[in-house]
């Protein structure tokens, strides 16, 4: 019997690293990861004894939270109550109402493989889930779901990302196969605000200006909107030849942005997105690191880079140097979620 992986996690302490970072400013956010320790290539039915799913950053590492679920993609919180967590996973939407002690798979047989979930910023009983074949919406905290796809195309609504506009209730942007779609009435109807041939992989709202949004796509490069997502412009400084996976703002510094791409590695901008520089030195992998996901810590500006199948890295100098997060070797981090701490 090998000990469960989350025990191993606790062995390696992060004090050395995170200690000095958190020394700068007291951490006011909790960090949650959706991660797996199976090289992201787990065979259905295989047994590798690892603990996977949702992890929460603690003083001495990352603690596995709740269900051991190898294919958890993203976690979303109820802005009113951080005890309420929605996790998009292969089986559907997992929900906890008590901070992860008890869970319920709230979706049924006709919802599968959600990638992204958003909670309405005003009416947080309203939850939006993106599926490979469209959108389902719940108006009772995920207890029940209805398809709400008026305005979405019959085909081409593979949905990779769902984001709620924090500034206005009922306003949600989704990234689909055929473009970016917007609803302003809680998904009663949708309209396309940007057309693509391939999937829109990520959409982020600026922490500094709610009207500013950035989207990254598989084959249309990166896009920016200054009017709350109504219109989009290509960001010139970024390549469109290969898929871009996700983008991150720095909540402390509007000039700092990070972007992850399998083909280009980690790209950073320090001038609000006008120019971008690869910051791959020190990241693993021969040639360009397979950057799967990136995030910027809202408390201290530390950049996180998840390298496919090769663990988690942090940089305190905007990507100029990287350090592996101990005991995260081999982890595949799917998404990062920062949540305002329950206690300051």
């Amino acid at each position, binding site marked *: 019997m090998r000990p*469960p992986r989350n025990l191993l996690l606790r062995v390696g302490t992060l004090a050395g690293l995170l200690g000095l970072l958190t020394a700068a400013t007291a951490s006011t956010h909790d960090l949650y990861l959706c991660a797996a320790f199976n090289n992201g290539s787990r*065979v259905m039915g295989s047994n590798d*004894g690892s603990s996977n799913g949702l992890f929460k950053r603690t003083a001495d590492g990352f603690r596995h939270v709740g269900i051991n679920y190898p294919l958890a993609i993203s976690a979303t919180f109820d802005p009113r109550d951080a005890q309420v967590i929605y996790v998009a996973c292969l089986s559907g939407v997992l929900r906890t109402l008590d901070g992860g002690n008890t*869970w319920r798979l709230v979706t049924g*047989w*006709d919802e599968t493989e959600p990638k992204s979930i958003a909670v309405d910023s005003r009416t947080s009983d309203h939850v939006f889930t993106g599926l*490979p074949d469209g959108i389902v919406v719940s108006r009772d905290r995920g207890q029940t779901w209805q398809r709400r796809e008026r305005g979405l195309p019959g085909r081409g609504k593979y949905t990779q990302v769902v984001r709620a506009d924090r500034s206005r209730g009922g306003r949600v942007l989704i990234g689909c196969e055929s473009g970016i779609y917007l609803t302003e009435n809680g998904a009663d109807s949708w309209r396309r605000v940007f057309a693509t041939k391939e999937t829109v992989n990520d959409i982020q709202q600026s922490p500094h200006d709610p009207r500013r949004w950035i989207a990254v796509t598989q084959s249309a490069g990166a896009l920016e909107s200054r009017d709350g997502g109504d219109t989009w412009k290509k960001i010139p400084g970024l390549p469109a030849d290969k898929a871009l996976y996700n983008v991150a703002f720095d909540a402390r510094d509007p000039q700092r942005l990070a972007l992850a791409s399998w083909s280009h590695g980690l790209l950073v901008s320090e001038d609000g997105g006008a120019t971008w520089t690869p910051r791959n030195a020190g990241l693993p992998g021969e040639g360009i690191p*397979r950057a799967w996901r990136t995030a910027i810590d809202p408390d201290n500006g530390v950049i996180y880079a998840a390298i496919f199948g090769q663990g988690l890295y942090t940089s305190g100098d905007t990507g100029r140097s990287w350090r592996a997060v101990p005991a995260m070797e081999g982890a595949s981090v799917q998404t990062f979620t920062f949540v305002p701490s329950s206690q300051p």
Partner: protein
Amino acid sequence: MKRFLAHSLLCGLLTVSAWAQPATTGPMPAPPTDFATDARRTAYLARANEVVQWYVDSIKPDNPATFQSAQIAAKLARHEDAAAVSARIVELMSVPQSQDMFWMFPWTAVSYLGRDQLTPEAKAAIRGQWKTYFPMRGDTENHWAMYYTSLYLMSELYPDDPAGSWFNGKSSAENRAEAKAYLVHWMDLATTIGQGEFNPTHYIGEYAIPMLYLATWAKDPEMKIRGHMKLDWLLADLAENTLNGVLRGPNARTDDTSVLQRWLALSSYFSWQCFGNTPPPASYGGFGIWFAVAAANYEVPEVIFRLANDRSEDFLQRDLKRSRRKWRYSDELMSPVYKTNYMRRDYAVGSYQGGMTDPIQAHVWDVTWAVPDPRGVHNTMFSVHPYASAQAMQSYFTELPDHMLALLSSQGKPSYDVPDKILGCSPYERVFQDLDTVIALYDIPAADRYPRVNGFFSKDLTDVTPDASGWIFARGGNTYLAYRPLAPYHWEHLLGYKQLPSKAGYKWERVDRGDKGDKLLVSPHGKNGTIVQAASVGEFKDFAAFQAAIRALPLEFKLEPVPTVKMRTLRGKEIAFTYGQAPKVDGKKIDYAKWQLFEGPHLNAAKGSRKLTITQGRLERTLDFNTLTITDRVTP
């Protein structure tokens, strides 16, 4: 990744066979001659008992590792050592579980087999894991069949438990309702527009076993009869597509091994178990035990048994099937698959119209011949376009574009992204079959990863004769074959694959073992085509006569702008087939829109009907999902 590799778990199991399995290593079973109920029943049960016995014998007292769920099920099926079994269960359940739906259905079986034998502790231990262990539902039809059948049965076994007592936080009633809704939905699809993972070499186990469990254990009589009917349906389909028990023709999803050695597939276990007409694969296909432990609760309908065993008359079956779900890059979620299967005593010819049905594991067409003993024999001939594409995978898998190919070649199945692959379908292939003539046309963009066609020439062919006419003649068993490449080609020998140890259940490495006899006809041209015709040795005075007959047939073709063929077949049909256009036979266009769900002498069902009629001689069985009715009729 996980999604398309599930089956390799079976292949893993297929390879482990430590101790003797009578039927696997023994002589070929004699074709059944006594069709009396008692004779069929006795032999059927004897085969199931052989499997159970083999697992019971596999338990080594000093080695707990040899005492797993399968052995437990075998013991319970024989009502042996309930105490020891219970103790072992408590032990096994004391650690974290894994394997998802592959865990769910075995422990569901154990729970039912043991419900009157196991100690309360053992039952509680299993039940406890249904709270603490969170199995994934997976993303394929076979995963869901196992997942929801298990969930359904467990929630009937523990009918009134609260939400908190189940892994997914739903009450017994909620789980039962959800599982039933899905299973009914799935049966509805399969009985109206066709089976998704059609003609499965391995996945038949993933469907037949859950259906047997429903038929055996479901308390709700509706689900019980549905399970029974669907099991009949699957086995009727199997019977119709096997020759001497070996599955033929196209497959939605298969693997590198089964596509060459057609016998080496889980489907052969089911042929052996249910029809008694071929040996079972090693370890009874790994899954066999899970059917065997409940086999006594099912009786193979005589009409299906006879359909599997009677090849006295040639027959042509046309079926409608369904592609895998395409999430992206497609105008339709699931495309129709038009499957043709022509069966003769000496050989079988099967195909679908080409195009994509599954990103990785599909097999589009082949001509396979009967052999006295199929074990180790590569009794097949076909060609493929070796197609590998991230976009293809993205259309079926909810994944980002880049990692899949990389993973496959680095650690998954190196056979996916290689120029000499023999498995898989292609968007650039169009196939038409008329009886025992197959025309496969290719129009591969120059920019494609591998703009070439691979034709498979088996080590078991004899008299392979490239002819000045352009035809390549050969003989397999009692079958004459003629293969016509439409573009220049050269020969390569086939590389092998070696399985490496891996906790994930699969890890393969390509190895060049030199020329082992199997050859690849490689035609490195995007505009291309293959024509194959087959005939029984008995139909011609000698090989020369067959060759002369083929040569004498009018044949015109051109490759530009798109490949097109005009020819007369050995059966005298005038065929005109152009890539991207409807084929014509004797001047008449083939209208696929008119195809029924099943059409032929043995299986018939109208599209959308939910009703299958199985016919063999004077026997008829009708499975009607509209009225949940099974009807057995004898025509006087």
